[in-house]
């Protein structure tokens, strides 16, 4: 690890932010992007300088939830890249570089992009950073779980559905094996059913978001 200079840059930048949350779930479609966007936006409204970083490079969607087109996002270069400002929210997504073009990345490349982004984006003054991630248990998650361990707190998202719970259980085992003590659980599209699951697994239950019709 430590032979990659960017890793040292990433660690320094993450250490400067008091609270970094990584929104994880090995299952897709459970609401990671909605949860990370809402939590960060809400936090920014409460006058906490907050950041949102989209690390789901193949399916970046936080900009859509926030209501921006890729061309509308821009960054300022200042000893790194300064995030885009949406009110009090600092925001970064590589969609502003890749636009709506398809981006196919192999595992190793995904790690490269993660390290590059984490080492150049300058979250000056941000007190809380939320990071959205892709589904799966592959290179992105490995990098986050093992190499950024201790620097980021996992927020695991699950729906009350059996398939989602099983997927989360496996993820929790991996996090525990990696020595992560504090794991936060957000229940999405539910009504509190996962509270007992959270208790039995020793997760910090943050609450639930009901299914919202649109």
């Amino acid at each position, binding site marked *: 690890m430590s032979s990659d200079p960017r890793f040292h840059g990433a660690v*320094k930048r993450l250490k400067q932010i008091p609270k970094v949350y990584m929104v994880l779930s090995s299952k897709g479609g459970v609401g990671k992007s909605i949860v990370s966007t809402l939590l960060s936006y809400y936090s920014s409204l409460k006058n906490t300088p907050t950041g949102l970083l989209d690390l789901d490079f193949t399916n970046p969607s936080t900009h859509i939830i926030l209501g921006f087109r890729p061309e509308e996002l821009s960054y300022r270069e200042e000893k790194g890249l300064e995030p885009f400002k949406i009110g009090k929210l600092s925001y970064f997504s590589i969609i502003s570089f890749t636009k709506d073009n398809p981006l196919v990345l192999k595992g190793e490349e995904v790690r490269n992009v993660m390290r590059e982004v984490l080492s150049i984006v300058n979250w000056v003054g941000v007190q809380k950073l939320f990071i959205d991630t892709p589904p799966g248990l592959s290179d992105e998650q490995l990098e986050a779980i093992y190499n950024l361990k201790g620097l980021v707190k996992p927020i695991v998202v699950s729906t009350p559905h059996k398939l989602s719970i099983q997927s989360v259980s496996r993820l929790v085992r991996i996090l525990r094996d990696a020595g992560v003590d504090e794991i936060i659980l957000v229940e999405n599209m539910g009504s509190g059913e996962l509270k007992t699951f959270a208790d039995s697994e020793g997760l910090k239950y943050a609450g639930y978001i009901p299914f919202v019709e649109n």
Partner: protein
Amino acid sequence: MVHEWALAESIVLFLENNGFRKVKSLKIGLGILQSIDKEIFSFSLQELLREKGLSVEKLEIVDEGAELACHTCGFRWSLSPESMDEAIRESIHFVPESIHAFTKCPRCGSRDFSITQGRGVRIVEVLPG
């Protein structure tokens, strides 16, 4: 394009964290894909080294050509940023893998290719003093 400062900072943090206080020679490769401004990068590096009190006797910064290789048909090709659109060049300047959004294998059209060389900034060699 002053994000070069951040790239240089990672190099310096690497040296610092690995206990290199006096370095005899440091060789850094700049993948041409990233169109790094060598002057700004070198200036940033020297500033940061000074700030941290690290000394480097011999500093060498070399360009590295970009080479891509297709996993589908095996074709290898090179790319120079000059041939690209300004906006695309800038994207790749920040994140070299952005190239995947703009290029396919010129022989078979596959998007399953890798940058095998000249991706970005790397330490080619560091010799302690």
